C-alpha cells in the first residue's frame, strides 16, 4: 500500500466513526429483544452487517423463529455478496486476505471505495480497507456499550428502546427511497406486512415482501 491519500483517509475515518456509533443502537436493540451480551457481540463480530443484524434481532423480538430470522437477515446479506463481486477485481487479493476482505465487505467499505474512483484504483483499495477495518472496530466497541447500557436499563420501553429499533430500520431504508417506484414498493410492503401479521406465523410477513421486490424488479 502506497502513501494514503488524505482525502481517502478523512472519508474513511468519518464514515467509520459515525457508522460505528450506530452499533450502540444495535447493541441496545439486541439485548432489548432477548439476545444475551455474548450473542449480541458475536452478531457484530461475525455477521458484521448492520441491516442483517437488526433484522434477525427484530424478527426474533417480534416472536419469529430462528429460521425466519436467519432467512430475513440472509436476504438482506445478499447485497454484500454483490459488493464482493464489484470489489474483488479491484482488490486482487487471495487466500487469507480474501477471507478478511470478504468479512469487511459491507455498504460503507464499498461505498467509500467507489467514492474514491476519481483518485485511482490504489485510493479505492485504501478506502475499502480503512473503512472496513474502521467500521469493524467502532461497530464492535459501540455494540458492547449499547448492550451493557440496555442491560442496565431494566424496562426498555421506559427508555424508548422499543421505538429506537423501528426508527433504526427507517433510517436504513430512507436513503434508499430514491424513485417513485421505490416509495410505492415501500408502502406496499408496509401494508402487506401489517395485513399478514395476524394471519401468518411471525417473521413470514417480513420475508414474503422479498417476493414483492423480485416481482417489481422483474416487471422493469
Amino acid at each position, binding site marked *: 500500500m502506497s502513501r494514503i491519500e488524505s482525502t481517502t483517509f478523512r472519508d474513511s475515518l468519518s464514515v467509520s466513526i459515525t457508522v460505528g456509533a450506530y452499533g450502540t443502537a444495535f447493541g441496545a436493540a439486541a439485548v432489548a429483544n432477548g439476545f444475551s451480551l455474548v450473542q449480541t457481540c458475536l452478531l457484530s463480530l461475525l455477521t458484521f452487517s448492520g441491516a442483517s443484524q437488526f433484522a434477525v434481532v427484530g424478527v426474533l423480538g417480534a416472536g419469529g423463529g430462528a429460521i425466519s430470522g436467519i432467512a430475513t437477515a440472509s436476504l438482506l446479506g445478499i447485497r454484500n455478496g454483490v459488493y*464482493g463481486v464489484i470489489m474483488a477485481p479491484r*482488490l486482487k487479493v487471495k487466500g487469507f486476505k480474501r477471507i478478511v476482505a*470478504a468479512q469487511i465487505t459491507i455498504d460503507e467499505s464499498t461505498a467509500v471505495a467507489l467514492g474514491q474512483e476519481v483518485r485511482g484504483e490504489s485510493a479505492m483499495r485504501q478506502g475499502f480497507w480503512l473503512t472496513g477495518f474502521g467500521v469493524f472496530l467502532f461497530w464492535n466497541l459501540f455494540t458492547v456499550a449499547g448492550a451493557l447500557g440496555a442491560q442496565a436499563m431494566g424496562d426498555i420501553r421506559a427508555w424508548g428502546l422499543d421505538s*429506537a*429499533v423501528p*426508527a*433504526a430500520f427507517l433510517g436504513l431504508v430512507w436513503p434508499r427511497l430514491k424513485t417513485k417506484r421505490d416509495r410505492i414498493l415501500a408502502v406496499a410492503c408496509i401494508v402487506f406486512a401489517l395485513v399478514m401479521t395476524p394471519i401468518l406465523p411471525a417473521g413470514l410477513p417480513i420475508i414474503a415482501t422479498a417476493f414483492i*421486490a423480485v416481482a417489481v424488479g422483474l416487471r422493469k
Partner: protein
Amino acid sequence: MNSFWIATIGTSVIAFALKYAGHNVPERIFAHPKVQSINALIPIALLSALVAVQTFTEKSQLMIDHRLAGVSAAVIALILKAPFPVVVLSAAITSAAIYNWF
C-alpha cells in the same frame, strides 16, 4: 441450543458465506440490469416491512401505542435530514416520554 443461538450462528455463517461467495464470482454474472434492480429493491421491501412490524404489532396482533409517536418523530427527523443517531434518539426520547407519562 435455543432459537437465539441458532439465529446468531446461522445468520453469521450465511452472512460470511454470501460475502465470500461474492468475492469468488466473475463480475459479468451480475451485469444483468434486472438482477441489479432486484438487488436494490430487496432491502427496501424487507426494511419497510420491519419498520411496520416493529411499530404496529405486538405478538402477532396489530397495535397502536407509544411506538407510533416515536417512529413519527423519526420521520420528522429524517425529513429534516437529521443524521442517523439523531433519528434514533428522537424516536427513543419521544416514545419514552409518552410511555412514562400515560
